[in-house]
């Protein structure tokens, strides 16, 4: 292996490989300046202006956040602009940091379950599933078939509600006065009603237990779910009709925030951002967990990798989730086992070892890495948070675009600060 092979296989030397230094304090400049290129310098030399510095525009540093209406929470972006063009953007995190992992290491395994709800508070069911899967893997707990179906049902509902909300927020960031957000919230409320019916809480569901779910679906759940499945295509179609061909939205979204296909994987992004860039990587297909190998569904991918592609991919994923739920409704009565493995102890004391479980959360790959030392508390508890890692290319993606595009690009990544800062 010679050193020549050590270079990034894609043409990705210094400028991209060392990103333009997200994070950090004001005034701190990264070692790698973004590329600035003077074009056609020769043509104007003899021309109108004597003093070339006269027309030089000033570089201005703007703090977007931490208290800004469209940073989705307390998140700060230190933006250096030249006129309206962004030449550098550094995300600054930590305003919501509570050292979730340290807290979790002080708790027992079961006590952590409600804390995972608070990570990505939009998708508490997905967080629960990833954590439950990790502990089950660690302690060797089996999950009955029916419980798996219920879990997948809940997570797919979560995906729909997350995308409905995320698209609403994205459009809201584009300045459409909450209309799509209100429509999305309406659908989300319906799903939350279902969650409340099953788990008792709307957002902090705390529904999963090791070896299953805490209680079986109530009898009124299924009729309501079937009603919801009737409304869901209408909602998605309406969303498409409202926005998909809207010229203003296309102007705002097409060609904005392009993450090229070749770079998307190198940036470790996952979820709709990765698929929007055209990489068909979906953990539900790539490494089927739970009962995902029993369902027919497609993986939508984008072709350009801009905001518009991510928008479309999310719309299509809602349709696919609806497809999965329809199959669950068909297959659920046949599923064996109760809602929970009766032999599963909730106060687990797993043997010494480590386990990593990951799921395709609505925002991307959500993984939990657990190390057990044989005690009832995890020795190490690590969250691989999709929103956090998806922020990696933000600074590079925004470079060269206008200030107004930043909020759109950020909105298209779809972050939740509870998960980013942990």
């Amino acid at each position, binding site marked *: 292996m010679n050193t020549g092979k050590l270079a990034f296989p894609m043409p990705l030397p210094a*400028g991209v490989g060392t990103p333009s230094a997200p994070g950090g304090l004001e005034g701190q400049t990264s070692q790698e300046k973004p*590329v*600035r*290129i*003077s*074009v*056609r*310098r020769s043509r104007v030399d003899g021309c109108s202006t004597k003093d070339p510095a006269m027309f030089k525009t000033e570089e*201005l540093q*703007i703090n977007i956040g931490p208290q*800004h*209406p*469209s940073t989705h929470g307390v998140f700060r972006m230190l933006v250096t602009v030249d006129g*309206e063009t962004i030449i550098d953007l550094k995300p600054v995190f930590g305003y919501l940091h509570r050292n979730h992992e340290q807290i979790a290491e002080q708790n027992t395994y079961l006590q952590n379950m409600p804390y995972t709800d608070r990570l990505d508070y939009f998708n508490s069911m997905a967080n629960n599933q990833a954590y439950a899967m990790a502990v089950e893997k660690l302690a060797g707990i089996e999950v009955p078939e029916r419980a798996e179906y219920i879990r997948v049902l809940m997570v797919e509902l979560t995906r729909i509600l997350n995308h409905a909300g995320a698209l609403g927020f994205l*459009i*809201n*960031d*584009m*300045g*459409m*006065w*909450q*209309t799509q957000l*209100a*429509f999305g919230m*309406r659908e989300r409320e319906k799903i939350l009603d279902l969650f409340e019916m099953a788990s008792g809480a709307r957002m902090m569901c705390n529904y999963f237990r090791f070896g299953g779910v805490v209680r079986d679906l109530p009898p009124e759940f299924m009729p309501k779910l079937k009603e919801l499945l009737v409304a869901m295509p209408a909602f998605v179609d309406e969303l498409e009709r*409202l926005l998909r061909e*809207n010229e*203003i*939205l296309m*102007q*705002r979204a097409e*060609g904005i925030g392009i993450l090229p296909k070749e770079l998307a994987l190198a940036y470790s992004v996952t979820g709709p951002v990765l698929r929007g860039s055209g990489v068909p990587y979906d953990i539900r297909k790539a490494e089927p967990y739970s009962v995902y190998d029993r369902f027919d569904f497609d993986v939508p991918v984008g072709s350009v990798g801009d905001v518009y592609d991510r928008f479309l991919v999310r719309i299509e994923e809602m349709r696919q989730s609806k497809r999965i739920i329809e199959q669950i409704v068909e297959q659920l009565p046949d599923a064996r086992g109760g809602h929970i493995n009766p032999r599963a102890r909730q106060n687990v004391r797993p043997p010494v070892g480590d386990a990593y479980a990951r799921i395709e959360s609505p925002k991307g790959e959500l993984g939990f890495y657990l190390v057990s030392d044989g005690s009832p508390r995890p020795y190490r508890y690590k969250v691989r948070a999709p929103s956090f890692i998806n922020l990696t290319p933000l600074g590079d993606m925004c470079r060269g675009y*206008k*200030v*107004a*595009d*930043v*909020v759109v690009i950020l909105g298209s990544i779809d972050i939740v600060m509870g998960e980013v800062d942990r």
Partner: protein
Amino acid sequence: MYDIVNGLINTTFGWNWPGWVIALISHLLVTTLLFAIAPFQMLFLTYYERRAIARMQDRIGPNRVGPAGLLQPIADGVKMFTKEDIVPAAADRWVHFLAPCVVVAPTMLMFAVLPWGPGMVPVDLNVGLLFFFAISSISAVGLLMAGLASSNKFALLGAMRAVAQMVSYEIPAVLSLLAVVMLTGTLSIVQLIEAQAGLFISSADVPGVPDLGLGWFIFTPVGLLAFIVFFIAALAEGERTPFDIPEADSEIVAGYMTEYSGMKFGLFYLAQYVLNFLLCAIAAVIFFGGWQGPGVGWLYDRAISPANPDGNWVFNLLAGFLGVFYLLAKTYAFFFVMVWLRGAFPRLRVDQLMDFGWKFLIPLTLVNIVSAAIWVALLRWGPEQGITFTQNWTPILRWGVAFAVTLAVNIVAYIALARIFAASQAEQGRIDLDEYRDTLTATLR
């Protein structure tokens, strides 16, 4: 108003006051009335907007204060008044203080030329339309003052965007009105309204058309295109979605208003909503006949007016009510469209906004002016202007030909310009890497 006051004081009471006192009193009365109406409009429009957009989003909207939430704006006003007035330490105090006043004053002045009903106009300036837009451009100074004095980057950016937008979109607005002015040959708003009598065909164009007050300019191709352009420009001037970039909360917190609180902030809001009202009203006046409508003309013919001094005052009252009703109905309908657009569209980016104004709307209005010239040539001109071939046509045929020709011109221009604009937009973001390969290579290495 002069007539009424004069009649009351000099005829009824017989005091024989000099004319200028009467004029002063009547002007003061009118001004007072308008100053009472303007904030009321603002209060009502905020309520109206919130209710309407809530309905569009499947909500109810404010419904707690008063019956059906009608007192909500009052409550908001009380809140505004009781809030602390904060002036940033680094601000330029006097300019910061003056800016809202400078913004509000011109919008109030604009009421001076707005006719409310037949014979109900504060001042019938012969350059009324020009006055309207000249005055409206002053508020840009106020916005700039607000942005400069706040010493805040967001405020500065917002003010620059706001002023750039207002200045840019004044041009298509005025140009689109110019087409209408060409059709009528007057700048007086009252005469513009009077030219819109008729039934779908203006009785000024084709004599003998029954007067139902429906000969609006919107029914001509020139007027239709001018209206569309004017309404878009009005959206931009009134900072409405999709052009509400100066106060795009998702980008630059609240624009030039960022550092304002309390009633100063309220004044900006007042100015904005009053301006919106006025723009809607002027659109109604210019393109939809203002107070013109079925019945108003008939009633006004029987009322006391300079042309008909011995009419009945009851008809004055009736015509006034009906006219004001028509005007307000049209105005609120336009405001509903503004709210509707706000509910349905995202906002443009600032450079796209500028491009849209300069590269699409202005060429379109220029084409429209050509159309207007064609229209005038076909309808009005005769051998003395050198147009001979229309000599023997009947008026209705001339009208029909003018309609068809201008419609064709406008549609073709619209589609062609839209294509060109879309192509240029698509081209804009692209950088031809191969062309600059050598330069870029040097900088990358």
